[in-house]
């Protein structure tokens, strides 16, 4: 009844439950289990119950049309603590903002709320979204609900776990180099990184502005799709937004980029993707190998452009008007600030930043060319299954390499969807689908087909 937005809405329609019951179900679970996993940094209990009361009233008054006006009524969501929520503490996972109460809300927060969703709380994440394990949070790591000795992935660690642990239906995160797709993969759920310029970033604490995207986690494809319909679209606050929609088609040809299956990718990970390919092939999907030789440069490009933008975006946190002084920054943020300033310095700009933007163009062109031949791409998400807490925390370079298969989509601004598929050694596996810019609908169709080919039903972890 509480698993997906659809089942919850059906139960509300049939008056089996009230919105208050929905809120109460999730809050009870959170209050009971959050301490085991460290998912939520701030809860929004009072407002959740208030809104539940309001919507229950509206449901009584006008049960037929209420879902047209509030398409996400009954949907319980959380936001990564990078999204500004008016009056509700927003920390970015950093001590710098540990008592920051935003005076305004992100556009996407307003949109989701206006559609009837109830925001239940703010989730833990790597500080400033810097990380691939959740361990960089100044508020302690979030644990993987499949096995608490393992990381849930990052940086949207709390958001991914909130959905996997059944703390809410949907959770919003950000994906700058894989921060939605990788934790979705590590937690056995869906994670959408939409096209750059499809969902407003206004009011979301910026990490690297030319790479940041706003997406969400869900445990089924229909929730992912319905929420995207609400979250996407232009506003007059984010100038990079566009309203575009790529044409739908029936016979999808899918590319298998061979560089995504090469050394460094664990056998169990690539085998699982090939298993998925076989299922698709059995159901008349066509596959074709594609060559993307510049993929190997994506991570180098990323670790130049990203810190450059990070150091620029973090400059405002000087502790003068809000937040704590600069010595509250953690080691990873400091590392990126120093790296970013270095690559932008006169004398080094041409060799690093400028060169990186040139290679970025090559990667974009190469992907555009591939999409002349195939409609979508299928690939692994993370080169390995979840790693243990503490395993990579002292080796930043090793941690950076966790992003190697997710970063190219950010470099090129294309959409990617992490799809859960199977369990191995008690930890999740899956694959990602990528497509040309604004091809989300095509990606959703392929993922929906996969759900029906495999009779997929979300099986929550026991923790």
């Amino acid at each position, binding site marked *: 009844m509480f698993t997906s937005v659809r089942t919850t809405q059906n139960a509300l329609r049939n008056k089996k439950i009230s919105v208050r019951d929905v809120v109460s179900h999730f809050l009870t679970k959170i209050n009971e289990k959050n301490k085991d996993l460290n998912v939520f940094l701030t809860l929004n209990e009072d407002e959740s119950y208030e809104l539940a009361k309001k919507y229950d009233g509206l449901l009584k008054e006008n049960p037929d049309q209420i879902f047209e006006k509030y398409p996400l009524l009954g949907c319980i969501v959380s936001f990564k603590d990078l999204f500004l929520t008016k009056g509700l503490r927003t920390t970015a996972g950093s001590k710098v903002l540990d008592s920051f109460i935003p005076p305004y809300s992100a556009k996407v927060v307003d949109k989701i709320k206006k559609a009837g969703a109830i925001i239940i709380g703010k989730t833990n994440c790597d500080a400033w979204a810097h990380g691939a394990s959740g361990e960089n949070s100044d508020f302690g790591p979030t644990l993987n609900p499949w096995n608490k000795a393992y990381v849930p992935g990052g940086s949207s660690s709390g958001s991914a776990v909130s959905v996997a642990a059944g703390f809410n239906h949907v959770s919003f995160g950000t994906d700058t180099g894989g921060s939605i797709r990788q934790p979705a993969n590590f937690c056995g759920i869906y994670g959408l990184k939409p096209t750059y310029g499809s969902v407003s970033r*206004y009011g979301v604490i*910026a990490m690297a502005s030319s790479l940041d995207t706003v997406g969400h986690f869900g445990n089924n494809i229909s929730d992912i799709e319905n929420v995207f319909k609400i979250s996407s679209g232009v506003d007059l606050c984010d*100038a990079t937004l566009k309203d575009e929609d790529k044409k739908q088609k029936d016979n999808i040809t899918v590319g298998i980029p061979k560089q995504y299956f090469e050394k460094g990718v664990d056998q169990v990970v690539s085998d699982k993707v090939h298993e998925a390919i076989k299922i698709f092939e059995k159901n008349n999907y066509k596959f074709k190998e594609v060559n993307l030789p510049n993929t190997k440069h994506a991570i180098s490009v990323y670790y130049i452009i990203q810190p450059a933008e990070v150091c*620029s975006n973090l*400059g*405002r946190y000087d502790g003068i008007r809000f937040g704590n002084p600069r010595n509250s920054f953690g080691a990873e943020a400091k590392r990126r600030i120093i790296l970013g300033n270095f690559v932008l310095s006169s004398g080094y700009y041409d060799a690093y930043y400028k060169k990186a933007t040139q290679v970025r163009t090559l990667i974009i062109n190469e992907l555009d060319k591939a999409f002349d031949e195939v409609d979508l791409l299928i690939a692994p998400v993370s080169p390995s299954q979840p790693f243990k807490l503490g395993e990579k925390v002292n080796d930043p370079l090793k941690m950076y390499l966790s992003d190697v298969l997710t970063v190219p989509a950010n470099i090129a601004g294309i959409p990617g969807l992490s799809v859960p598929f199977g369990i191995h050694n008690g930890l999740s596996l899956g694959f990602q689908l990528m497509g040309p810019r604004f091809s989300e609908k095509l990606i959703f169709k392929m993922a929906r087909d996969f759900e029906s080919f495999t009779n997929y039903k979300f099986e929550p972890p026991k923790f």
Partner: protein
Amino acid sequence: MNKYIPVIGLEVHIELSTVSKMFCSCSALHFAKEPNTQVCPTCLGLPGAMPYPNKIAIKDVLKFGLATNSKVNKFSKFDRKHYMYPDLPKSYQISQYDLPFCINGKISLKSGKTINLRRIHLEEDTAKLQHYEDETGQYSLIDFNRSGVALCEMVTEPDFENVDDVIEFLKEIQLIVRYLGISQADMEKGSMRLEANLSLRPEKDSILPDYKIELKNINSFRFLEKALNYEIQRQADLLNKGVKVAQETRGFDQLKNTTFSQRIKEEAQDYRYFPEPDIPPFRFEDKFIFVIKSEIGEMPQEKRVRFANDYKIPQNYIEVLLSDKKRSEYFDKLAELDKKYSIGLNTIANLMVNKNLDQEYPEPELFIKKLLEITKKDYSTTDENTNAVYEVLHEFPKAVSDYNSGKGAVIGFLVGMVQKKLGGKGNPKVITDMLILNLKSPK
């Protein structure tokens, strides 16, 4: 004593008078407003806030560029310029680096000399720091009302060699900006701000000097003139003594009429520019540029030429009338009306320039009416005058040839004859001018 030639370049900041700020919808009219009442997340640089560019401001800058014969960069973008200062809430200013909206403009001075404009770009203004002192000590407050207001920066080549040219150029730029209606360009209110770079080179040496002094924070043409003259003398004295002039920024002391050192520049600051990722780059189509060009009205220089050719009024009158676009347009209307009344444009211009009669009569028609009352004369019309003059010149060929052979006094006789035909209703000044014009023109 060596003789030196000043080498002067200018940087002019012009605050655009757009309704809203450059990257948000806050009101841009910040002068004398209660501090921090016109602010939002974007211009406060709050976490998560993003810039949304003001298209009117961009059009204004393109207009300014086209009106100063600049080339529009058809591919252009914004960049982030990084430096830390309390009046800059994001720790970077959104500005333009290598691809400003306009480049390579030109302005001609009356002497015929051309001043080259290196670039015109658009950026955001900073907040305003207010410094106070009381029994608790010194402190500073920040007013963000100005933060994010559209600011246009124009940079010239170091083409000026004397102070008069600098002042003439700046007054012309101020006039152009006001004619375009893109800014009040009011120096007292800070909507036009001047910076000059000045150094001296020996007269016989055309190589640029290896130092420059920046003169900053000067808020009137008069003070700039004084500062430049003082600085030229100061540098010449130093150079004559064999002292190397230190590279520095200097301000102007209005009480002592001297310049003083504000900041020694050790090394060029590294602004770590990179393209603003939150604003996609711009591609301007030829058609778009053409439309903007067609929206530019008559510029001061064109008006100057037209007034001289069509109205034949003295140059000093023209300059006074031109200096206020509305006044010059008022004069255009008077000139049109005067075709009927023939009061004479010199008389009218004189009453405007010396008596400010136009201030009392917002409507040109009432101005003319008042004028006719003052002179208590119901003057003959231009057509009547033309006919009478024509007839008299044909009826008195002797007087005409006398005049042409140098007997200027005969003009009085001719005026009398014309007045006789007009029954004394002619304006003597107008008739005299008309006679002189016709007496000379056949040759």
